[in-house]
């Protein structure tokens, strides 16, 4: 894990490796891995969409584009806001259905429903206070 250059002084210590790669939430480790893959693919698709947008902006502004110009480009605040909206729409398009319809399409015993009803949006969130926004795990 530490630097491969042995001439350098190391400031690391031994550590205990996490076993999170073995976590199974979705009933089968392959399903869990596929979820990770789908999210990673989302990151790659978004990174390429963002790069395309930057190329378009550079073409409009400069008439030409090089790899160095793309790497160095810093979007304006307006451009950043536009891309943020586009990103959030992309995430909703690709993943939002899991949150929106998951409640409808599974019965309370976890089995699939044949005739899903409308999702309830009226339940309150009052059973958790104080944890949001702190730490790295909620």
């Amino acid at each position, binding site marked *: 894990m530490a630097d491969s250059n042995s001439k350098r002084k190391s400031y690391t210590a031994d550590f205990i490796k996490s076993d999170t790669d073995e976590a199974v939430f979705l009933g089968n480790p392959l399903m869990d891995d596929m979820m990770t893959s789908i999210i990673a693919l989302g*990151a790659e698709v978004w990174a390429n969409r963002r790069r395309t947008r930057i190329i378009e902006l550079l073409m409009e502004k400069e008439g030409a584009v090089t790899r160095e110009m793309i790497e160095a480009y810093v979007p304006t605040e307006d451009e950043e806001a536009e891309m943020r909206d586009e*990103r959030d729409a992309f995430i909703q398009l690709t993943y939002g259905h899991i949150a929106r319809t998951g409640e409808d399409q599974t019965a309370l015993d976890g089995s699939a429903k044949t005739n899903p009803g409308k999702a309830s949006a009226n339940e309150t969130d009052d059973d958790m206070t104080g944890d949001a926004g702190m730490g790295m795990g909620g």
Partner: protein
Amino acid sequence: MMNRRTLFGASAATASFVGALFGSKKASTATTTSSKFSSADVEPRGSKGRLERLPRQHLEAQHDFITGFRVFANRDMTSAARRRIAKIMRAKGIDPTKRLSYKEVLGHVGGDPLVAASARMWLSAQQINWKTLYDEFHGNANAYLAEMEATDNAGPGTLELNPDMYIPEYLTHEIHIQPGGYVGDEFAGHIYHYGTNNFFEGRNDQDELHIGLATAMPEPEDGKVVRVLDQGCSCGQLSVALKERFPDAEVWGIDVGGPMVRYAHMRAVDIGIDVNFAQRLAEDSKFPDNHFDIATNNIMFHEVTTEAAHEILAESFRVLRPGGVYYPIDFYTGNPAPKGVFSTFRQWWDSRWNGEPWRLDYAKFDMAAAMRKAGFIVNENGPPSRRGARRNILGTKPT
């Protein structure tokens, strides 16, 4: 005060430097050593205020996605899972706000696909987050190590590394499943800083959260603040903010992770803030008795064992001067702690699968009682540490 960017004349490195440095790993070393700038200052895409931009457009875009995905996971998926859990519990005739053991909670909701997906998606994003950063910093290790070496002995502020220091085993796991944890990776500070930055969903790019905590920091009643201690300082954001809040005070940030304080020092030098960072334990800080006017920490206690928590409180009491204040910022424990099935479920998977092994013990820890036991006068309704908080525990060392 001159900062390192000014010193090196490299406020935003040129595009050609970017291409040469990160066009290939092979080019990295050659360009770094031949740059007209200091070979050390790796900031190829400049800074956004005090946040150095991630060094490649693609990596920045990946983290932009992770930021957005965390918003989705924390809001949409969490809300859906919370509603789902409430529905399951009500169907079973159990009040969802009831406090149950995590084993009982798992028995009721652990097999539900939506609830499971909410945890899975959060953890998958966390894994992708760390991997992208790990690959970046290790893939260009020479440049980043040279950058740290160049500031190890630079000022403002000082850096103390203790590579032979005893490190308790309880601190050696991969906290938050960060590769190598806080002690086992040379780039622990780099990875932590950027990996947590997207957790804050863009609201802490300029350390706004930490500045807010420092702004809310209570002072001793006599108003005397000569020395301030930040325990478990990680990459030093609160330490820096405390120095800005108390510019005439001597501020120390200590952390078990050598790579953590090394990065914290480098960053403070870069920003031009005079903070002293040291690799030391909060429970064995080596400072003299009655030395500090304020001691604090941010989200540290849920990362330590109950035994260590008591030791840290005793040490904090020792190093504070009479009248000095102790202000530990973390999740509520004891009676004000969150209750309910959803919270217990989330605490469980966070503890078990997100590298927070002491979190469940911490949830049962009565911080106020432990502080009293250590000798503090405790105000359980102290001033809130952050927006949205109702209160924070405040300890005072009796005069």
